[in-house]
């Protein structure tokens, strides 16, 4: 392979079973790809190309379970299209085509590396631009594949976390305010009714009965007649004389 030509290499996934590939940057600026089975491929290019490549990892079965689709070349085409779309939204890069996005090393995981080249196909676009483009459009890319930030990972491109929704007034203060008001109102009502009972007791004739003892239910009884006939019920019939009426036979 001559240094000026870059070859896009997308090996057969079965070739890579349970294996992994390493992209290693050599001392003289080239970078090479090793495959586990001992086959060495070199992709000779300037050092910065290695830095401009990003690894992508998809977890289809985790995200979709039984509805997981198979990752084939059509899906790869869609991916390239999404990356190209993201790059086209960057100012000065509106001319990015799908053919400018290069994928390689698709594993069974599913994971692969990609780079975006410029229209001349001689240089790769700087990592910073690709990073910001992907970050801006992360949501669209995720949705195209029915995945989310955790199941479609771009290594070295951290996702912007969704800011928490902060209502203007924290909810807890509202509920606190409601309960606080209820308790204050109930307390005021009880205190006021207590004061009213107090005043009524002070106006009443008897000093024996305490207003707070209204729930007193042991009444001392002797001979069937309550001992406190002159109680606070406000001038009721004197029970001591009730029985006399009944002794008189009606006419």
């Amino acid at each position, binding site marked *: 392979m001559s240094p000026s030509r870059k070859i896009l290499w997308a090996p057969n996934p079965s070739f*890579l079973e*349970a*294996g*992994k590939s390493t992209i290693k940057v050599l001392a003289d600026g080239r970078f090479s790809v090793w495959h586990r089975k001992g086959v060495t491929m070199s992709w000779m290019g300037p050092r910065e190309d290695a830095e401009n490549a990003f690894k992508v*990892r*998809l*977890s*289809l*079965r*985790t995200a979709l379970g039984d509805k*997981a689709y198979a990752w084939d070349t059509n899906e790869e085409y869609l991916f390239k299209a999404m990356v190209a779309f993201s790059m086209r939204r960057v100012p000065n890069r509106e001319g990015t085509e799908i053919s400018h996005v290069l994928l390689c090393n698709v*594993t*069974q*995981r*599913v*994971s692969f590396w990609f780079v975006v080249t410029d229209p001349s196909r001689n240089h790769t676009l700087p990592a910073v631009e690709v990073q910001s483009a992907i970050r801006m459009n992360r949501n669209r890319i995720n949705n195209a594949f029915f995945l989310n930030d955790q199941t479609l990972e771009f290594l070295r491109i*951290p996702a*912007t*976390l969704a*800011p*928490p929704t902060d209502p203007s007034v924290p*909810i*807890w*203060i509202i*509920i*606190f305010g409601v*309960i*606080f008001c209820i*308790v*204050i109102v*109930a*307390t005021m009502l*009880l*205190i006021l009714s*207590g004061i009213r009972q*107090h005043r009524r007791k002070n106006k009443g004739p008897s000093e*024996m*009965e*305490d207003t*707070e*003892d*209204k*729930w*007193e*239910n*042991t009444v*001392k009884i002797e001979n069937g007649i309550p001992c406190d006939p002159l109680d606070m019920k406000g001038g009721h019939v004197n029970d001591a004389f009730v029985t006399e009426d009944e002794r008189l036979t009606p006419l």
Partner: protein
Amino acid sequence: MDEARPLWATPLQFVFACISYAVGLGNVWRFPYLCQMYGGGSFLVPYIIMLTVEGMPLLYLELAVGQRMRQGSIGAWRTINPYLSGVGVASVVVSFFLSMYYNVINAWAFWYLFHSFQDPLPWSVCPLNGNRTGYDEECEKASSTQYFWYRKTLNISPSIQESGAVQWEPALCLILAWLLVYLCILRGTESTGKVVYFTALLPYCVLIVYLVRGLTLHGATNGLAYMFTPKMEQLANPKAWINAATQIFFSLGLGFGSLIAFASYNEPSNNCQKHAVIVSIINSSTSIFASVVTFSIYGFKATFNYESCLNKVILLLTNSFDLEDGFLTVSNLEEVKSYLASAYPSKYSEVFPQIKNCSLESELETAVQGTGLAFIVYTEAIKNMEVSQLWSVLYFFMLLMLGIGSMLGNTAAILTPLTDSKVISSYLPKEAISGLVCLVSCAIGLVFTMEAGNYWFDIFNDYAATLPLLLIVLVEAAAVCYLYGLRRFESDLKAMTGHALNWYWKAMWGGVSPLLIISLFVFYLSDYIITGTLQYQAWDASQGQLVTKDYPPYALAIIGLLVASSTMCIPLGALGTFIVRRLKRRDTASVA
């Protein structure tokens, strides 16, 4: 004719009041911990023995004293023997300390309750850091539930010396909690009697709902099996027996004067023996019932964490070796690991340090008690349930009911002697006395809402009530049996209720229970002396975990003051009465 005393509308209100006082947060967050530490199912053996030997007799004793003397703790003990007025004062002082710090728990329960109405629950997600690229550092190191408790609720400082400022959010919740308590005790037994229907019954409703939910959770059986497999060797551990005795003692709330206060509002002919047995049995059954719920929740949480741990290992291996997604499962994890270790040794050795050893046992063994259990462990389990807002609201509402129920008893212990005293009640109506007590307790309780407040809370929780109560109940039992006379008390009870006193009660009051209390007392003292300096757990924000620190000297002084201020009341009361009598005798002698 003596002034009529307010009474409970029905005996049922009295029973509910005692239940709602005795069944408190300790049943939910202390008993499951003890059960787990001391042998699971086999802990029930010392627990039930201590219940029959120590719990029931002492509970009956306090109820009988209250019902017979028909006064609060100060008046009751003064009637038994004038030299014992200090015992009543000590009870009131301890109750005052307790009510100061206990209501802070209700404030925290309110805080969590108000925050349960959000989606997602605030303790289920970590807040983002400054530039929105990741989560807050403290939250990452600890967990989101710990972060919410230590940072958002308490805003805890790194040590007790750094007090910080009063946090206005917990302070507001504390004020609300005190207002609610004031509302419930405002009219004395009239209002308390109605409130205890709710505070006694609602927690059971919630516990039953939680039982059903807990048992249907995935992994609940792991927790239950772990709890109930008896570890018989723990029966030989003296600590198991001591902790069983301590738990029964404090769970019933003996010695605070609340039971005496409640019983003083009974009709004299009330069968308090039956009620004592009922209340103590219900209290212990609730503890066991609550621990079943707690352990099914533990099991769920442990299983959830264990499975998350396994999933993390699976993800790590899948990513490092680019295996097919979904190829590694829990069942083939071990064999695939050994295959990878043999096939790719160098790569495997790189990854190996990051592979955590996931163990269900170690998750289950994290035994927690106290506020940690209620506000960290439980919230962690709740956030993983479906419809977590509903479960959260139910749970904190239950905690609130339990806490308010106990607070009613605590405040009754303080207010009954105050309202009984002719001096005070002639100047102020009952509402004003209650208001003053609540106001003072609330003002002092604001200390616990400072940044170091939780450390002071732990001090009060561990030291304010433990030793003094043992001493108080010991003196109570000894006073009734030997000072007042067991025969005299027996005949009093017979005249009052119409039932003869069973020999069992006499044997327990006279001999077994005091001996048990003395041994508990000796154990506690020796434990404090042997440990030397007292230490506490402080939250280290940089590490995201608790670290042990020593108390500074002034904190130790305050601990000593707490214990001394209540225990010294007993001898000082006796001394005071002695001096007053000597002066009176000298006066009458000089006059004559």
